């Protein structure tokens, strides 16, 4: 099945439509705020970040709301992408070959679809991570209303919330590294939405085939 609507002039391919791009940047803005204020609460060495962002009281007040915005955008991603993020046999092969991916020997990688297995892991990591952060975050939002005999909820939340946040920070660092530095063209794809034909063919060959149609030659 070909998807000619993805093929746009000048040999470019539409990778992310406007809704996808907008959702990404809403999530990004919310996450960066959550990360900055969260790190301020995490370590005294970074408490000044909260001061720089308008004071720690303000940070404490807005952090939960930013969390809701972040969760809403992750949920929107789930609605848009959950089908495309399903693990396949090819993804298992991809993970086995991940050392080639991480050493830039992309020609030795099994073909990836619109999202490779690493991107799928990022997605599901953020999806489940944001659910854990939301649940524990609600407890931390209103600790004074948690009854004394349910205090174990608070005990669990103060541990799970930062631990999950650290997990997503790991994902976030790799995501930033890949998008900004490692994969040239990836950052542009989430700004204007398009990538080159060569980008699509090299990093997402299965997706590329889907777009141009099995039988089509790339020049068509």
């Amino acid at each position, binding site marked *: 099945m070909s998807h000619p609507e993805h093929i746009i002039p000048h*040999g470019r391919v539409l990778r992310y439509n406007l809704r996808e791009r907008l959702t990404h940047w809403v999530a990004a803005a919310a996450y960066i705020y959550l990360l900055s204020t969260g790190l*301020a*609460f*995490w*370590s*005294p*060495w970074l*408490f000044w970040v*909260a001061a720089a962002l308008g004071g*720690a*009281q303000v*940070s*404490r*007040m807005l952090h939960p709301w930013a969390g809701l915005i972040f969760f809403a955008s992750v949920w929107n991603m789930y609605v848009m992408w959950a089908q495309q993020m399903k693990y396949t046999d090819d993804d298992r092969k991809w993970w086995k070959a991940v050392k080639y991916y*991480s*050493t*830039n020997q*992309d*020609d030795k990688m099994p073909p990836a679809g619109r999202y490779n297995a690493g991107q799928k892991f990022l997605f599901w990591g953020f999806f489940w991570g944001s659910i854990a952060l939301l649940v524990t975050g609600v407890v*931390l939002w*209103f*600790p*004074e209303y948690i009854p*004394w005999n349910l*205090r174990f909820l*608070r*005990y*669990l939340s*103060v*541990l799970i919330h*930062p*631990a999950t946040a*650290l997990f997503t*920070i*790991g994902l976030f*660092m*790799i995501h930033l*590294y890949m998008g900004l*530095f*490692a*994969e*040239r*063209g990836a950052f542009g794809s989430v700004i204007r939405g398009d*990538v*080159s*034909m*060569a*980008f699509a*063919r*090299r*990093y997402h060959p299965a997706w590329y085939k889907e777009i141009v149609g099995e039988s089509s*030659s*790339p*020049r068509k």
Partner: protein
Amino acid sequence: MSQAILRVQKISGHAGSVPGEDTQREYTVCKLIDTTTCIGCKACEVACMEWNDLPFGETVFGNTYQTMPETRWNYWNLILFNEHEREDGSLMWLMRKNQCMHCAEPGCLAACPADGAIVQYTNGIVDFQQANCIGCGYCITGCPFDIPKMNPKTHRVFKCTLCTDRVSEGLEPACIKSCPTGCLHFGSKDDMLELAGNRSKQLREHSNFPNAGVYDPPGVGGTGVIYVLHDASNPEVYGGLPKNPRVPWSVKLWKGPLKWLGNVAMVGGLIGLFVHYLRYGPKEREEEDLVSGPGGGKT
């Protein structure tokens, strides 16, 4: 005013050293509450409200003496009334003055992320500085005694100050001053422990309370408020006084190993990614593909 008594030896959420740490020879203040001579008159509650100029809150009436069910942000000192049936069938009416315990190792302070929102003076008093409080409520989670209470309007947390302002002027806390039976005492920790020990001995040997003892829980490093109890083996009957209070394990895990692991992982991750870029650099450049054309690609 003596500055020495207000030197700070612990600060919440603080980077770097603490000005008053390790500067004191040896002097910790302590409040002793002898529950065996408390008559539940609530004079200490009134004195606390008066001295600290706290706004009144709603009382409840359930046909008991407990007209205030628990401490509040504006009610720091509360006598808990409990009817306790002993094994021999006799009834005891237990009264325990409840307030901040001023732990030597305070869970509230350990959990607090806000620089200077909770301090511990070298005299052992744990004090909240509402100006620095950010209203996160982590202190509520850190406290094993359910003491810090949030003002819902201002989102700042309050509790007993052990009348720091009075103590720093050489006066005893307001509650101590008001007690008509002398069940409240104030002095150095050593003196109070000795007094409490003697009183417990008296109760054991002369008043038929073989389990009488002193409540100074070691799980929080000892407290700046200690009790004499008729039955020290069962503090729970005094309105839920925990038998072995500790800073919650999850708070310790979060502020200890998780913090170190997390910091090492984050810094290590940044270094790792940087080194990876130096070693491998970017994947092939998009511009090269453009030069060779969409159909070209690499061979």
